[in-house]
């Protein structure tokens, strides 16, 4: 899978979520009146999450995200930028596509003729 700015953001978000999961499990442990069963379940879940993170879970999330975006792209019949999920990705794709293209200046009459009424 091609690495992109969008994926880096997702990995970062997953790391933040992992830290939240750890701290909430810690909060459950440290509360003196907490129900034992709930505490044990939270601890077991946090261990399970920690075991699954970071690689397996990240890959799963990215796969799901890509599937979602691909689904929308397919629906929209988007062929040019198939894995777009964030503006950064669009710009990255544009930079890649720009190589080998001539430098153009948009003529004033061309810009003036464009209208938002066409949408």
């Amino acid at each position, binding site marked *: 899978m091609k690495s992109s700015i969008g994926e880096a953001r997702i990995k970062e978000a997953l790391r933040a979520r992992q830290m939240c999961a750890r701290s909430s499990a810690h909060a459950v442990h440290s509360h003196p009146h907490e129900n034992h069963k709930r505490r044990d379940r939270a601890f077991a879940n946090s261990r399970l999450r920690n075991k699954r993170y970071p690689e397996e879970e990240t890959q799963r999330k990215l796969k799901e995200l890509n599937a979602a975006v691909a689904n929308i792209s397919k629906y929209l019949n988007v062929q040019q930028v198939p894995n777009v999920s964030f503006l950064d990705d669009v710009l990255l794709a544009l930079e890649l596509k720009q190589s*080998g293209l001539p430098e153009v200046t948009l003529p004033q009459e061309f810009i003036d003729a464009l209208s938002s009424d066409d*949408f």
Partner: protein
Amino acid sequence: MATLLASFAHKPDTLFYLDTSAVFPLALQAAGTQNQLELDRARRVSAFLDHAKRNSSRGLCSVLVLEEIAAHIRNKTQRDALTRVRCDKWRDFCDTDPDNAEAEGKKIQATVLKMLTHTADALASAGITVEQPVVINAAEAGKKLRKAHRDFLRHYHAIDSMDALHMALGSTLGCKHFITFDKHWTSVTEIEVLYN
């Protein structure tokens, strides 16, 4: 429900979805248009978003806006090129003059990218984010999106397929307020349309 952009009473923490007709004037302004109607629209959208920001609200759009702008510029520049070489179809142009067609194709691509760059600059400067619905169950979400799209189209004959898709995407992204310059949207009652 439809409200004029100028008479909207701002409330805090509101998400505003902008369709392509609302983003395009900003892109044209960034590209240096002298078209007074577009400049006036760009000023109104910018002023509205500035007001929204002061109320902790913000504007967003989807990648559909970029796709629509790209397709529009591509079609227009392709038509202009075909008129210049007196051809009806791009395929005919490629068959009769492949070298020239390839050079024109690169120019068209560069023009599309230039306009998208202006659009990206305008979005960044207005503080509008480009978002996509990120979902856990992709198949289920895709199904819901398509259903919402079909429902909008079924209920409102005045709106076209792309408009309905903007509404479905915006709703999926949690927006209830939609900014547009397309008056056909004013017939839609499920969302709050801000126009003019």
